[in-house]
């Protein structure tokens, strides 16, 4: 089944908020409530047997604030399909897909850890990168790069990292390595 056929099959059975075609990539923006049903169809009927990645986006200042992006892949046809759902800040729950693709387990834990979205029905929703008991979600846009001080059992401290005028960024250009190297560049 080709990518176009798969996308059409989903469109015919589920309400699609937006369909984006860009450079041969197809993205379907769907409702949060229907993502589980779509995932089951994708895996069982449309041949998307691999979940490559789940990521999340923080569109700070917009509503709905968060997006969750699912990258599906079919080993048989080689087709990539991207599914997106929007998540409002008022209700941060997302249905888990860990019972559809087992690999979703750790991806969802990472999103919970970094972005603070909670996955309904996840068998083991703990932090995966930061330590147990860390109070913040560091990949959110309103979280400073240097961190916030926190009082954590066993660690006992985290301090704000000194940025010394940073963050340090590179300049993509044809200039010499010396001019391209990371420096504190104020916009």
């Amino acid at each position: 089944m080709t990518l176009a056929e798969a996308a059409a099959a989903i469109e015919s059975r589920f309400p699609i908020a937006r369909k984006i075609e860009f450079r041969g990539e197809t993205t379907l923006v769907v409702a949060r409530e229907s993502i589980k049903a779509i995932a089951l169809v994708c895996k069982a009927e449309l041949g998307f047997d691999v979940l490559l990645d789940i990521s999340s986006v923080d569109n700070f200042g917009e509503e709905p604030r968060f997006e969750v992006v699912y990258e599906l892949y079919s080993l048989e046809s080689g087709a990539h399909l991207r599914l997106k759902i929007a998540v409002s800040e008022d209700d941060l729950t997302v249905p888990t897909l860990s019972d559809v693709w087992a690999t979703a387990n750790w991806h969802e834990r990472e999103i919970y850890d970094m972005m603070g979205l909670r996955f309904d029905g996840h068998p083991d929703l703990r932090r995966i990168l930061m330590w147990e008991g860390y109070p913040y979600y560091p990949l959110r846009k309103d979280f400073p790069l240097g961190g916030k001080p926190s009082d954590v059992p066993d660690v006992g401290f985290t301090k704000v990292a000194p940025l010394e005028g940073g963050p340090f960024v590179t300049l993509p250009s044809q200039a010499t390595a010396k001019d391209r190297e990371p420096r504190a560049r104020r916009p």
Partner: protein
Amino acid sequence: MAETAAYDSKIEGNVIFTRLDAAINWMRKNSLWPMPMGLACCAIELMATASARFDISRFGAEVMRFSPRQSDVMIVAGTVTYKMALAVKRIYDQMPEPKWVIAMGACASSGGMYRSYAVLQGIDQLLPVDVYISGCPPRPEALIEGLMRLQGKIDTEKSFGEQKRELIEELSI
């Protein structure tokens, strides 16, 4: 002939006179068993230091021990994240006195280029560091230089007073 029985010329060459501190420190500094706390790319240089070309065993520190209970010096080589900091501290606590710490490279010394919420800004916020080595990562020569500096430092220590320094600090409160 009681006088000749007390004097045995055969052992004369095997007797030396020295201070106890000097003798103990000489033994300690020439047999430093490192705990390789390799956390990032500095660990690659640490391994290179141990291998044939640079050969840290010339300085008596080739016996990398992966058990803290057999180690003398912890070489913190790499980026210490807050999550790992707990484990580093715990391993340090398991090392028997006397113990020393080398902060190898920019990250272990100061957080390096990782000015980030996740990275401890220098292992000296947790452990008493004896020698800092600059570089990102430092060359094996720099690590050997740091080791020699540590040997120099051990030479000047009071071997018994320093041995239980944590215990003594606790008792004097």
